[in-house]
């Protein structure tokens, strides 16, 4: 693990960039924490609103969810949650799926799933908010 210039195969530029063999450095960890904080803050705002809107007549629910401020909070929550879901499940897959082919397929399925869920949720919120 010595970083002495004589024994390392890495160029000085590589060492300075500090991105390691996966070429992404601490980016994954950092995004995981940033989305975690966003989830925490947004859920604290969204949870009371969702409880309030749940179980009402449809018109009432639509009026609550369609308010611009509520819609923006829900959109941010959906985006942040699905991002967090994607990178979280990515680690689970990398840990438990040993076969390379299955792993790649599972990682792709994970991306498809989280983007589909996020897009569907965002579409529903926008449709409600735009009054459709």
């Amino acid at each position: 693990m010595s970083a002495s210039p004589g024994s390392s195969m890495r160029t000085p530029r590589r060492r300075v960039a500090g991105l390691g063999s996966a070429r992404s450095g601490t980016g994954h960890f950092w995004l995981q924490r940033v989305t975690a904080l966003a989830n925490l803050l947004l859920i604290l705002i969204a949870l009371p609103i969702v409880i309030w809107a749940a179980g009402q007549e449809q018109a009432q629910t639509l009026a609550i969810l369609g308010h611009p401020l509520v819609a923006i909070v829900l959109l941010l929550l959906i985006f942040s949650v699905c991002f967090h879901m994607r990178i979280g499940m990515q680690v689970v897959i990398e840990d438990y799926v040993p076969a390379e082919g299955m792993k790649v397929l599972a990682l792709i399925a994970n991306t498809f799933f989280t983007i589909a869920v996020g897009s569907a949720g965002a579409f529903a919120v926008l449709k409600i908010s735009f009054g459709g």
Partner: protein
Amino acid sequence: MAGAAERPLSPHLQIYRPMLTMMMSIVHRITGVALYLGTPLLVAWLLAAASSEQAFSFVNGLYGSWIGLLLLVGYSWALIHHALGGIRHFVWDTGAGFGPGPRELFAKLTIGGSIALTGVLWIVIWLVKG
């Protein structure tokens, strides 16, 4: 992978005596996966509300049933447990709380707090919604 060296594996779960902190770590991951599968529940509700009166009342009926409510209680517990576990990680990120005392305390707070807060949440929901 073909041709990959047979490398020794590090000791895995079955070799360790179960500990509370270790269980909380495992539960954090399990609740994460459960929440991953649970997010479509919220999206289904939003989509139903955006679609039609029939779809909306169908989903409301589903979530208002005994099984639906049980699922939602479990979902809320998983969410709170995962959130408390995440806050614990934020504390650890600062470099604090790694000692035997604090980490045991965190484990107990995560499990106790998640159960207590889930109880409070559903009492509040019951009081507000009837």
